[in-house]
């Protein structure tokens, strides 16, 4: 019987500082990550469980391109025991991981449609993987937008990637507290609607919350005329086992680790928790 709790070793190939509290880690594996029949290493939206023995294990959304089989990238905000310990590591150090887990965004459903992605601060990783997929398959998608919000400009992550993606998709940045150099928007404001030219009946939304999710929904997505059924949300919960046993990640009738992390907004909107 396969031991599904057993993690495997990966090498930290690169660490980038993305803000005062956030670092990106590139994790490499000697014999490469396995590709599925669509030549993807994982489905955009999926997560992995990262271990640093002695400090614990926690879920992280994958931020790199799903076509990249030599490494996986995660974005780590220094917030608890495990993330503090990860921030102390150096390039070349070894840690463990297992996964990828979960379902990912519905790529087939999204194909051929206009796409609006909405996320905030640290919610960028699963959206980043989706953008990488979209820019690698440009002809499969219509008009593509990313609305990325944060409290302050420093909290906007993956800025080099944003520049690169900007050639293929329209990126709208917004912060709650701009500094004097800020050129983007202030807050999740309804003026953003004027920038988004989509066919609402044939558009799909991908979000990673909770951050700006509800505000974006009220001020932008609903006024644009996008129905809840076309909105897909990547959820976060406490997680321990990753395989549908431990009960930590439940939301209503669903397990985030097995049924999600991507849910149709309709499915989770009425959950009591």
């Amino acid at each position, binding site marked *: *019987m*396969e*031991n*599904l*709790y*057993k*993690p495997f*070793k990966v090498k930290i190939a690169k660490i980038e500082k993305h803000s005062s509290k956030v670092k990106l880690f590139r994790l490499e594996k000697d014999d490469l990550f396995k590709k599925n029949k669509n030549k993807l290493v994982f489905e955009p939206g999926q997560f992995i469980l990262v*271990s640093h*023995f*002695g*400090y*614990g*294990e*926690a879920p992280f959304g994958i931020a790199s391109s799903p076509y990249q089989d030599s490494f996986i990238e995660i974005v780590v905000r220094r*917030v*608890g*025991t*495990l*993330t503090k310990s990860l921030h102390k590591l150096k390039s070349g150090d*070894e840690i*463990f991981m297992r996964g990828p887990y979960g379902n990912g965004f519905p790529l087939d459903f999204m194909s051929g449609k206009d796409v609006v992605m909405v996320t905030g601060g640290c919610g960028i990783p699963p959206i980043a993987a989706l953008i990488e997929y979209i820019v690698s398959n440009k002809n499969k998608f219509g008009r593509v937008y990313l609305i990325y919000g944060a409290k302050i400009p420093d909290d906007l992550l993956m800025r080099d990637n944003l520049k690169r993606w900007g050639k293929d998709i329209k990126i709208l940045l917004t912060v709650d507290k701009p500094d004097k150099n800020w050129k983007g928007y202030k807050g999740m404001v309804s003026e953003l609607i004027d920038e988004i030219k989509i066919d609402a009946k044939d558009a799909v939304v991908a979000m990673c919350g909770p951050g700006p999710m509800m505000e974006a929904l009220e001020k932008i997505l609903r006024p644009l005329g996008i129905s809840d059924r076309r909105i897909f949300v990547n959820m*976060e*919960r*406490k997680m*321990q*086992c990753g*395989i*549908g*046993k*431990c*009960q*930590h990640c*439940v*939301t209503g*009738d669903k397990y985030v680790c*097995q049924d999600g992390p991507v849910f149709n907004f309709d499915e989770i909107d009425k959950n*009591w*928790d």
Partner: protein
Amino acid sequence: MNLVIEKKQIKNWLDELKKENIVIDSKKSVLPIKQHFFPPKENLFIFNKKTKKLKSPDYKKEIIIICHHLGQLEAMTQLDEIMEKPNPDFFYWQRREKSTLIGLIDESFEVAPGGDLILEKINSKQYKVLILTDKGKKIIKNKFFKEVDKPEVKNYLGEENPFKEMLLDPELLANAVKWSKDHKIWDELAGKCLGCGICTYVCPLCHCFSINDRVTLDDRECIRCRQWDACTLSEFAKIAGNHNFHKTIKERYYNWFYHKFVRAYQEYGKAQCVACGNCKRNCPAGINIGDVLKEIVEDYKKYGKLI
């Protein structure tokens, strides 16, 4: 022909088994049988910091467990299913596969709920043998059992348990608990419940756990352990950065019921409860889960369909 064992021979048979096996009487612990396959605390992995090697403890011990209630056997059948689907739990099965469950049952029944072998009381002096698996077959090949043509068979009624009757309609329970979210009973229970988690520890089916790392005092090894958790505890849904997805005891208590009667029904077609009454007997706040369920179901029948 019926295979029977004399009541007075049972002890001798068990003594014989004890010579070559570890035999555990479930009566001796307040904790349910799950503790032998899913221990309150167990090491999953040991990571050596120097060699960077990862190993798992290899579990070799074979055990025989004596169960005295049909509910204990039923719970084990259910827990096996939970630990098998949707993904098999390696550490549970590592122990479970090396165990044999014997039911020693003083009430008459029609359908065997589980276990490897059941001895069912048929009269004041004899027990009838019911072999359910090959493991059960192995341990009765000895002089203590004999074939009897037409043994005297009496009917022994089990204790009356209205709570158990309720479990026969898991769909109704699922609908009622789902409906009851805004019922005043959850506020009342939030006032009573101490959030200690005892109900989940003594439940033969509760299987929440958390996984934590610790480091040995000599700093040579990191040990990843799994331990029982309880969804009623305040930290259960709390993540780093202190956000808590189930902040109040009311939400957590409701989630406990929601799992047992709603999610379990959706996943396995039955409630994760065998009406054993362990939770009621051990609750320091005196909460009677059967009564709670009864009130919800009654109100659901009265008002639920109106909405």
